[in-house]
Structure formats: C-alpha cells, structure tokens
C-alpha cells in the first residue's frame, strides 16, 4: 500500500463520529463518581454520627485533602491523554494535597502528646480502609483507563498512575464519610497506602490498555 492509497483509504473512513476528548473526560468523571457512590452506599454507607462529625475540623479536613487530590489528578490525567499537551504546567497542583496533609500531620503531632501517637496512627479501621478505598476506586479506575485508551497518551504508565490517583481521590472522599478515624496521622498512613495501590494498578493497566 503506498502512502497516497493509504490517504484515500483514511478519507473513506470518516463517517464514524468520534467523541471529542474533553467531553469524554467529563463524562468519565461523572460516571466514575456515580459508580463509586453506588458501591459506597451499597457496602459501607455514612457513619451514624456524620452530622456531629461535620462540626469537627479533623473530619472536614479529610474531604479538603481528598477532593484536592482528585481535582489535581483529574487535570493531570486529562493533560497526559493528549499527545502534545503541556501537562507539566498542571503537575505542580498534585503537590497541594500532600502538602496540606503534611501540615496537618505536623499540627497534629504538636497538639497530641507523643504517647498518643501510635494509637492515632493505627486507629480502628486500618484494614477497612485498605480494603474499601481500592474496592470503591476500582470501577472509577476502569472508567478512566478507558478514557485514556480513547486519548493518545505518549507516556501511558504515567497517565495511568494519574488515573489511579484520580480514582483514589474519588474513592477516599467517599470512604472518609464512613471512617471514624479522623486523625491526619491515620489518613497519612492508610489512605496513602490504599491510594498508592490504585496508582500502581493504574500505571500497570494503562501500559497495556492505552498503547497506540
């Protein structure tokens, strides 16, 4: 097949409508949040004292951190899905959530006597956290990997890791509404491990699925 024949062939294949990428990402985000909500409310549900908890800064801070993570990872994953996008411009926002968490941990260590630290780190729900953040996040991750496949990432593994952080941010936001361990020490330990697992899974998945 010479190049002119190829061009005529490609021109003949233009009746299939293709969804624009930005539209696909917003659709994927909506679908992912809906999936996460269904799994969350079907399995865990809100904690019983959620109204009282909403008055406490530690509980609310969890949502600030997880939604910041989700929003910054969304921008990064979307940027990495275009071959020419300057994703390095949005990458620094990814540092906001970890920085907030680091400050919260520092303040918590100042507020609590050292003897109380181990109990706050271990908490009551570490295994629930490690099981349910990945469980809630796996559906959203699949949706985002399909969005990456629809795009054209030149660094699939990196894009997949960003998709994993995005799915992790969404899952952790839901999970935080169930969990009674509100200390930043708990969040920095167990949430981080669970979300890192999703990021690794996303990197591995996208390396296979999002090649083009």
């Amino acid at each position, binding site marked *: *097949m*010479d*190049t*002119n*024949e*190829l*061009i*005529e*062939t*490609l*021109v*003949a*294949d*233009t*009746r*299939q409508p*293709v*969804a*624009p*990428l*930005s539209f696909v990402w917003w659709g994927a985000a909506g679908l992912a949040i809906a999936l996460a909500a269904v799994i969350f409310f079907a399995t865990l549900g809100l904690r019983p004292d959620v109204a009282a908890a909403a008055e406490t800064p530690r509980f609310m801070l969890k949502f600030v951190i997880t939604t910041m993570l989700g929003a910054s990872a969304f921008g990064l994953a979307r940027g990495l*899905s*275009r*071959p*020419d996008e300057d994703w390095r411009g949005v990458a620094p926002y990814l540092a906001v959530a970890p920085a907030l968490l680091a400050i919260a941990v520092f303040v918590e260590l100042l507020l609590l006597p050292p003897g109380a630290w181990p109990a706050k780190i271990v908490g009551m729900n570490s295994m629930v956290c490690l099981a349910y953040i990945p469980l809630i996040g796996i559906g959203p991750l699949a949706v985002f990997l399909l969005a990456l496949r*629809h*795009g*054209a990432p*030149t660094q699939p593994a990196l894009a997949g890791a960003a998709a994993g952080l995005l799915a992790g941010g969404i899952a952790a936001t839901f999970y935080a509404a169930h969990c009674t361990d509100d200390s930043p020490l708990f969040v920095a330990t167990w949430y981080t491990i669970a979300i890192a697992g999703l990021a690794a899974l996303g990197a591995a998945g996208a390396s296979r699925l999002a*090649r*083009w």
Partner: protein
Amino acid sequence: MYGNGEKELARLLRTAIAGDERAYGEFLRCAACLVRGFARRKVGQGGIDPEDVVQETLLAIHMKRHTWRDDGPVMPWLHAIARHKLVDAFRRRGRRVEIEIGEIAETFAEPEPETVSNREIGRALDALTPGQRSVVAAVSVDGNSIVETAERLGMSETAVRVALHRGLVAIARRFGRD
C-alpha cells in the same frame, strides 16, 4: 507563532473533522509531507524506512484526530504523534534485529520472494479477518470507493464502512501493541 502553514493546516483539519472529505485528503497530504521531512532527518541510517514512519503516523493521526484541540495549534500535535511513532519504529526495529539473527539459517535456505507491497502497513493487512482484509484491500490497493466496494463484494454500504473502520482500527492496534 507557527505562521501561515499552521493556520491553513488548522483550517483544513477543522473543516475535515466537521465532515469535509476533500479537506481531509488535503490535510493528510500536507501532514505526510511534513512527517516525511521529519522522519528522513531523524531516521539516518537506522535501518528504518522513513515512509513506514509516515504511514504509521498518518494512521495514528486518523485514529486519534479527536485528541486535537480545535482551538490549539496543529504542528506541535502532529509533531508529538510523529515522534511517538518514530520511537515505536525504533523499538520494533531493535526487536526484529534480534529475531533475524536467530533465523539467518532459515532465511538462507529459503529465499523469500519480494512482494510488491512490503510496507509495514501492507503486511499488517495479512493479520486482518478475511472480510476486513477484502474490504480494506478493495478500498486501499484497488482504489475503489465505498459504493464500488459494496457492489463488488455484494455488501451493504454500511457493512463496508464498518469493516473498513474495524480493519483500520485492528491495523493501528497491531502497531501500538508491541
């Protein structure tokens, strides 16, 4: 920033995405020239045919044309896709060299006749299902239109379009996979 060529290319691609086949053909011919220059400069004596890179890039442009931002410049987008496909070609070439060393004895014993179309994309045709292959070959190598192909193969136009599209997707995916 990118001059008149950039503006004209962006206009062609925008019109093409809106459904204008002539604009699309013109855009792809311009893109082929640009990518050919790029590929020839980069390939050097690497044992890669630059025209293979041109064809694989055109196919990738076609499959991923929705990843272009219609308010953004075309050149950097085109360049990013071409570079991605060039890296692919180098990687495959590296792998193939290893295979060939192992198969030298066989090659000597049984000299393969050179086929007319031994381009990578031509070879990828062989991996398609028989139905897809006959449609893609009728449109590409024989230069038939969709309507002519439908008449010749006794298929509906829609079935021809679907088979052509799936065949091209399969070829593009074959290049992406390894």
